[in-house]
């Protein structure tokens, strides 16, 4: 009897789960495994047959200046965006968590850029960095507006950092605000009674108590920015030269534009390992600092 029920339950479970699971396997897990297989092949077109060549793609990748450069750019860019976004988002959240008139209006304004696609954002800022800055330069004569913000390889990556921070800061602010609202009022009051103020209160009380939000925000900014594609594609196209080519843009180029699909899949496999390692380390370090009240 019991066995019969168990079989019946499994039958129902499969019926409910199978449609979703089949799609997940076809669209994600199968391609994931195929990617690892293709990374050991020479494969020059979606319609062509891949030829096994062992680890050669990986050896070439690790010596490929384009790949190494994209790795360097992506990390440099990500570290800056993660740091700036989180500091600014937390600062805004601390201010907008207070009972302040118009706070909802400000929250909405800061959140706004986040709902718009990064392709569009990229073009808006391309307009500002080129035409807008030209106009400002002719009015003010300040050299800062005369620089080529997207065309100079020393500046282009900084421009991307600024736009990325501008776009994502409102989202992270919202998560920090949600975190701040979980702190019980009496904890803050007793901290004030004990004489904790300003930065001391922030580092000894507020931050430890909202550590779960900090963990999430760092995770999200880290993962999102390591994967940056749309913003680069729309605003600099990876240039000037290859100075702002991110790992994901490089994978896209190697495979879909240069036709080196096997080589592209090896980079894609390495990309997976890099993101997994970085985010796991981050979660590990940050989780350790979370405290229970």
């Amino acid at each position, binding site marked *: 009897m019991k066995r019969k029920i168990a079989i019946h339950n499994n039958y129902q479970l499969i019926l409910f*789960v199978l449609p979703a699971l089949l799609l997940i396997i076809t669209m*994600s897990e199968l391609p994931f495994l195929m*990617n690892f297989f293709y990374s050991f092949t020479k494969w020059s077109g979606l319609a062509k047959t891949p030829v096994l060549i062992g680890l050669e793609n990986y050896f070439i990748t690790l010596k490929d200046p384009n790949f190494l450069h994209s790795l360097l750019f992506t990390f440099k860019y990500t570290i800056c965006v993660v740091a700036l976004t989180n500091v600014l988002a937390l600062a805004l959240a601390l201010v907008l968590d207070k009972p302040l008139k118009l706070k909802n209006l400000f929250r909405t304004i800061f959140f706004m850029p986040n709902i718009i696609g990064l392709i*569009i954002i990229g073009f808006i800022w391309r307009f500002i960095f080129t035409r807008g800055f030209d*106009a400002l330069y002719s009015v003010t004569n300040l050299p800062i507006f005369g620089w080529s913000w997207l065309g100079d390889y020393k500046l282009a990556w900084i421009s991307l950092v600024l736009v990325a921070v501008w776009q994502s800061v409102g989202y992270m602010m919202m998560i920090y605000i949600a975190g701040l609202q979980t702190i019980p009022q009496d904890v803050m009051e007793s901290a004030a009674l004990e004489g904790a103020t300003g930065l001391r209160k922030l580092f000894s009380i507020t931050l430890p108590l909202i550590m779960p939000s900090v963990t999430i925000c760092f995770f999200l900014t880290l993962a999102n920015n390591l994967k940056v594609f749309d913003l680069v594609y729309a605003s600099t196209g990876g240039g000037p030269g290859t100075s702002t080519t991110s790992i994901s843009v490089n994978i896209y180029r190697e495979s879909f534009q240069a036709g080196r699909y096997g080589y592209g899949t090896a980079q894609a*496999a390495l*990309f997976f390992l890099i993101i997994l390692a970085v985010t796991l380390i981050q979660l590990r370090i940050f989780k350790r600092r979370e405290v229970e009240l």
Partner: protein
Amino acid sequence: MKTADLELLLEQKESFTEVKRNWRTIIMLIGLTVISVFFLYPFILVLINSLKTYGELLTDVFSLPTKAEWRNYPHAWELMDYPRAFLNTLYVTVVGIVGIIFLSSLAGYKLARTKTRFSNFLFMLCIAPMLTPFHTIMIALTKVSRELYLIDSLTGLIVIYWGLGAPMAIFLYHGFVKSVPAELDEAAVMDGCTSFQVYSKIIFPLLKPITTTIVVLDVLWIWNDFLLPLLMVNGRQSTKTLQLRAYQFFGQYVSEWQYVMAAIVMSIVPVVIFFLSMQKHIIKGIVSGAVKG
């Protein structure tokens, strides 16, 4: 010191801190307003320049247009085949999300209700792709989609979104169903419901909060998505989505900024309307999605 004096002193001190507090509030409001300008001004620039003639835009980017050049809009509307691109995007977003919601709630519900090792395994299989960056699977996914004739078709794109959106949605549903008492299921079965009826009549309506969260997250994802449509439906003009059209349009008319600005406004408006009309749900949805995901 007499009590009266002491009271006076305390009063003075209180009014002093109040003045200090007021000043702080004013400084904060000024600071927030300045930052808001950075967030809003890019959009204002786009709007005013979308109403200028080419000559006027070249001479002055910052002034208001002397005479609104409304013709930029019908021109851009036609050149980017706006209605078609809009309807394509709407179709993919709506049917994509309906599918994700249906398949994932079905699976997430049953997986949370069945507590066996087998169901645990299925659950892990369902959510594992949340760890994989899209760029790792994109090359092989394009290959799979070609083999399955899903490429160059909007319906094909939708099916791919079902597979890619399901893991996160199942994860969120699975977590939420645990808070719905299982006694409800048993009572409904007693009353003669089949298990599909239990799901559709009793459980699904109770999942509304998490369904809203998933809808919000997925609307912003699918509506703004660029890379997947680029790989799947960019081959034909008739299947292009709004993001693809906008990108193509920007590339073709890159120096005629007045048309690009009009195109940007038209691409942003739908998502801004969605945001402003559902603002509360969106912010709540995004925050809770981030916290649980």
